[in-house]
């Protein structure tokens, strides 16, 4: 087995992946990879239940967003359906001081950071471009151009080193999210080079959901993505991306290595985008129903529910309460999204430059003058 590879589970791709919870809800005590790393989790019953709650909640919120888009209330939505375990596991693995650089699909990670789930809806509803303060939330703004944020994450991680904030358990680390398609981008490869050369405290977390819009993985790579890391001189490991426990355990270990000064690593979370790329996409044109069905059998939530049930950690009362609570959150989200005010048009001239610009100011004044000519008109 190559570096980072593990025992091959029945549902694993060739080369294997780290799996701590099978699709049937069986716990795998621990997994030791070829490079000697052993992964496991040691959760209390309550912690298992909270992970389940996270998974259900982010799926329910996502479904509400999809519905809002279909009803014309969002311009577009990028659904995370199917990728809940990858996002919740890695998101919960972050420590408070860690910084995340998302794409535009990391609503689940955002939720695990304790951020109000309405935050990205400004972007998708079109009332702003997705604005918030990354340093307040330790969660960068969504980045739409594919792969760009991996370089931002790498630079931020270099800054951690320059600030002397690594080398112990209190050190800081960065996680950069991206997808399988992004691995073809020059920026992602440059981020790998940079982080390797500067030993940056960063974890590259690739959610391989098998498709870059319509193009299958085979159009992006000739070898498994996690094995690319070897060429850049740092560890690469593949996990069952539909296993929240594996996602948590491996990400936590990788982040801790990074914060301790051991440099970058790449995690490939092998998962599947159950829905469309975005609400504008039609996946029936490029993938077959049986493939989708086969991934349904690996559902991240069903396996967690199965595990909790078999282990008698939770029962239907708990599952029902989780569903109800998630529904309440979703309906509250819906109400607040519908109540989002449209911005005043003149605010489009705000925040172009920190120090302003006489040219923008002049155009704002002209815009206001022009619109004022309509006031009090016959119309």
């Amino acid at each position: 087995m190559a570096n980072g590879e593990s025992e091959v589970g029945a549902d694993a791709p060739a080369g294997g992946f780290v799996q701590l919870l099978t699709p049937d809800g069986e716990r795998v005590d621990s997994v030791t990879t070829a490079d000697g790393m052993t992964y496991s989790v040691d959760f209390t019953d309550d912690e298992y239940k909270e992970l389940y709650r996270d998974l259900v909640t982010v799926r329910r919120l996502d479904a509400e967003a999809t519905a809002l888009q279909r009803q014309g209330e969002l311009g577009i939505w990028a659904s995370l359906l199917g990728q809940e375990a990858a996002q919740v596991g890695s998101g919960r693995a972050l420590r408070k001081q860690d910084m995340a650089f998302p794409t535009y699909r990391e609503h689940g990670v955002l939720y695990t950071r304790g951020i109000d789930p309405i935050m990205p809806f400004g972007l998708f509803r079109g009332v702003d471009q997705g604005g918030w303060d990354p340093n307040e939330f330790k969660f960068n703004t969504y980045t739409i151009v594919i792969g760009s944020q991996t370089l931002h994450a790498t630079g931020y991680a270099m800054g951690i080193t320059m600030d002397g904030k690594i080398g112990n358990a209190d050190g800081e680390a960065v996680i950069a999210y991206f997808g399988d398609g992004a691995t073809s981008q020059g920026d992602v490869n440059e981020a790998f080079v940079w982080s390797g050369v500067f030993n940056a405290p960063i974890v590259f977390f690739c959610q391989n959901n098998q498709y870059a819009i319509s193009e299958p993985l085979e159009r992006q790579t000739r070898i498994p993505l996690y094995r690319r890391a070897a060429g850049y001189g740092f560890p690469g490991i593949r996990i069952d991306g539909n296993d929240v426990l594996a996602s948590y355990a491996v990400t936590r270990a990788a982040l801790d290595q990074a914060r301790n000064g051991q440099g970058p690593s790449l995690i490939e979370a092998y998962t599947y985008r159950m829905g469309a790329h975005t609400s504008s996409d039609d996946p029936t044109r490029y993938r077959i129903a049986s493939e989708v069905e086969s991934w349904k059998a690996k559902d991240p939530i069903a396996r967690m529910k199965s595990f909790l049930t078999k282990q008698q950690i939770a029962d239907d009362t708990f599952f029902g309460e989780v569903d109800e609570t998630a529904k309440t959150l979703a309906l509250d989200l819906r109400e607040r999204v519908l109540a989002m005010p449209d911005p005043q048009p003149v605010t489009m001239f705000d925040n172009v430059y920190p120090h302003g610009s006489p040219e923008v100011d002049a155009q704002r004044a002209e815009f206001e003058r022009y619109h004022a000519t309509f006031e009090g008109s016959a119309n």
Partner: protein
Amino acid sequence: MAETITLGKALNHGLRRSLESDPKVVIMGEDVGKLGGVFRITDGLQKDFGEDRVIDTPLAESGIVGTAIGLAIRGYRPVCEIQFDGFVFPAYNQIVAQVAKMFYRSLGNVRLPIVIRIPFGGGIGAVEHHSESPEALFAHVPGLKVVTCANPADAYTMIRQAVASDDPIVFFEPKRRYWEKGEVDLDADLDQAFPLHAARVVKPGTDATILAYGPMVRTSLDAAIAAAEDGRNLEVIDLRSLSPLDMATVYASVRRTGRAIVVHEAPGNLGLGSELAARITEECFYSLEAPVLRVTGYDIPYPAARVEEEYLPDLDRVLDAVDRSFGW
């Protein structure tokens, strides 16, 4: 203490002052460390400030700018060196899609106080990609500010102002003027300095206004001296800031002289001259004695070095345009 130094050395002094005055300032680029940059603009800085503050980066321009963004989010003030004008394009996406838009996207929460230094322009006998003038490609992008210096004193001051500014700034350096000398007050206080985004009348005159920037300011001043022999008193304005443009200074001059001629090395089509001509026409129409004329590079790829002198605007072409303006 005023010293007579080259434009390149003035930039070096300015960067040194910036590194001294703010520990968050870092310089990053290809060969900026031990070598001091291919033009030696960062000469000696790594030795004095260390490898963490003057960073030799891997050879990838998008990576230089992309990681600078992350450092800026972290609170640093990166000064990126792009080795030559024609090498900036791998970084163009990060500059245009990220550097320019982050403040806007984040509703003003994220400032990216990044300076991207680019030696630009021709006249040094170089091979392809080493002599270009891509400034309009950046001036066209909202969210970026674009400046260029034309003499050592401005080089020293403007680079410090650019580094101190929270706006993202593309800083074009007239590479063929790196070795030209001038007097620089190295103790000058930034608070008292001429504003970064203001144009400057570098030679007052009454008969026509020459609008130039970067390497063409010297050419235009030489043309003004020659024109004086013909009895024409040209005013020369160094625009200095290409985005935003200091149009108030331009309008005031053109209203007095009634004639405007824009000079730049970049191709004429949709260059700075196009914008200047349009705006002067809109604002100074009744003051104009002749159409705004342009003396520019041709709309061709930058040619081979053996013919570049025929491509570049020179004193004679500027004087020819002056003649045409007066002949209108």
